[in-house]
């Protein structure tokens, strides 16, 4: 913690950056912090409650943040994948952001009352994480904590879904997505949803009905998750933001698994590795694309 606070203080004092986006203790748990002066640097913390993906705040259209000046951002491995995605897709210039990467032993499912990581409280995204020691950084901090407790909640759920017939699976997702109220909170909180104009808001033609009907909800969530294929970094901000508690992360995981199987690609911390969505390859299996 002291190492992070000292570094933030130095970056702010010597003018390397104008703001450090990190975590602080809020009135009710850990929350994102925007540290703009060296004196505030001791507010910064990093622990198992730091669930939020701060890369979302690097979106160049968040004018209230870009006006602050040059940014340093605190990331975990999963968040570093989002920063890599934003660099890869030309949203962030590598030279314009100072990445402060934290070695990570897993975080809680939700920041709040639980005080230790157990198989029940650890986030499903931490299971089998290969980015606990981030690879994309300007500074890497902390000692590598022990591996997070093993949890198979999500893989069990996905295995159960795969055992279903296609009709059962269709019914499962129809039921889940029927709760969607089309508030688009999932999109706004997602670091990889940065389109200037979302397809859901295009009206000429109206690709997707804006009302929360089963048909339109299915179209919206299918469209969103397909646009996330190979791009989703599995930070689960969508699920945390959803006021209807729809298991959106599982839907995205499903598609990520398909991309891995078919294209041998996993969203990673290397900005130079193009995702299948944005790449052309003469060796592609599909004839129509060659």
């Amino acid at each position, binding site marked *: 913690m002291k190492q992070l606070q000292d570094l933030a203080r130095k970056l702010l004092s010597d003018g390397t950056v104008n703001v450090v986006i990190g975590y602080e203790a809020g009135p*009710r748990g850990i929350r994102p912090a925007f540290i703009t002066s060296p004196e505030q640097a001791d507010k910064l913390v990093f622990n198992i409650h730091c669930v939020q993906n701060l890369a979302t705040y690097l979106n160049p259209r968040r004018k209230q943040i870009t006006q602050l000046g040059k940014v340093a951002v605190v990331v975990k491995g999963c968040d570093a994948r989002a920063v890599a995605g934003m660099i890869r897709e030309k949203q962030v210039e590598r030279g314009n952001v100072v990445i402060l990467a934290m070695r990570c032993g897993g975080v809680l499912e939700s920041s709040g009352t639980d005080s230790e990581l157990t198989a029940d409280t650890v986030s499903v995204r931490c299971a089998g994480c290969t980015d606990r020691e981030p690879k994309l950084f300007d500074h890497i901090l902390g000692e590598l904590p022990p591996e997070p407790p093993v949890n198979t909640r999500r893989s069990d759920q996905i295995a159960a879904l795969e055992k279903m017939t296609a009709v059962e699976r269709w019914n499962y997702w129809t039921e889940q997505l029927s709760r969607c109220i089309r508030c688009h*909170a*999932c999109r706004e909180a997602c670091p990889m949803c940065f389109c200037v104009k979302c397809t859901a808001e295009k009206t000429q033609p109206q690709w997707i*009905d804006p009302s929360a009907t089963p048909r339109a909800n299915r179209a919206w969530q299918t469209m969103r998750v397909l646009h996330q294929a190979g791009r989703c970094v599995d930070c689960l*901000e969508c699920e945390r933001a959803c006021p209807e508690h729809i298991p959106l992360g599982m839907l995205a995981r499903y598609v990520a698994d398909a991309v891995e199987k078919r294209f041998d690609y996993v969203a990673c911390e290397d900005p130079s590795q193009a995702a299948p969505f944005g790449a052309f390859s003469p060796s592609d299996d599909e004839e129509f694309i060659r």
Partner: protein
Amino acid sequence: MTHSFLSHQGFAALVADLLAANKRVIAPVRASDDPGQVDYMPIQKFEEAVFGLRLPRRSLKEFFLPPTEVLLHYRQTKAGIEIREVPTAAPPQVIFGATPCDAAALEVVDKVMGWDYRDELWFGRREATTIVSFLCTLMDSTCFCTAVGLGPESFRGSDVLLVPVDGGYLAHVITPKGEALLQGHTAEASAAALASAETAQSEARKKVENNLADIPAELSGWLAANFDNPLWKTIALRCHGCGACAAVCPTCHCFDIVDEHDSADSGVRRRNWDSCQTSLFTLHASGHNPRQSQSERFRQRIQHKFSIYPSRFGEILCTGCGRCSRACPGGMDLPNLLGEIVTLAQTEPEVSGQ
């Protein structure tokens, strides 16, 4: 207003009678996705309801202003356009176990729904609904109902308020609708039941009062005069503009109206929940957007709730339910921010930015 005593058996029988008469009954139930959480849902059996377990995640708003609803059907024919409006009379429904903040919110929103245009769909459902609230004992650190003139024992918007006492409930019968509902199910309240309810009410109140001091009446004027205060530039940095706060808010009532075709010559006109927290909300056809960043959009949320609505309708558009803080993925915290704004208003009372 009168008092009576409703025994546990009497309560179960009342709900069973309503269900047997095919009335729609809504109550807190365990959430389908998370048994530790609670949602207001229509019930088929009394046993499905769970009273006093957790604050429901969403407010009662959806039972009066659904997330999407059809306003009219249209069809284009050779003779012209046929329009069929939807009926505005709603089937009767009874809500049990409402929190007083959720019941009060309906009365607060009535003001705008009946202002320059009477929203018949809203009032159709309001008139068809009887609301039985429970003394709230479920408050957490995000609650601040007492700061906005309400309380865990508030009668506002309820037809009956039930307070748990030995053997059942003390029923505060607030309206004729509430009296009609309880008819034949209650007994006379003993002095002991009245005293016990009184104690429970004041204890519940004490649990919320420390969260946030009363919002001073001057705040509305200070906000109006401080539209350009530098405060707005930094207050919402962590806000994603996702609008989850508006979705769970009992008093956010903005909607959008759209036409959706179901064939080449017919379709429906619907209204859908909308939120001032998204950039599309104020995007003009010209491409200009008067609220350029989340700073302006969050300022709008605070101004509308604590200045614009009070100056037009004489009351705050917030019941202190705390849901916005609980739902926020960015850790925005309304009681905390209001505390900061009130402190600023008291230390810098002079008009800034003029």
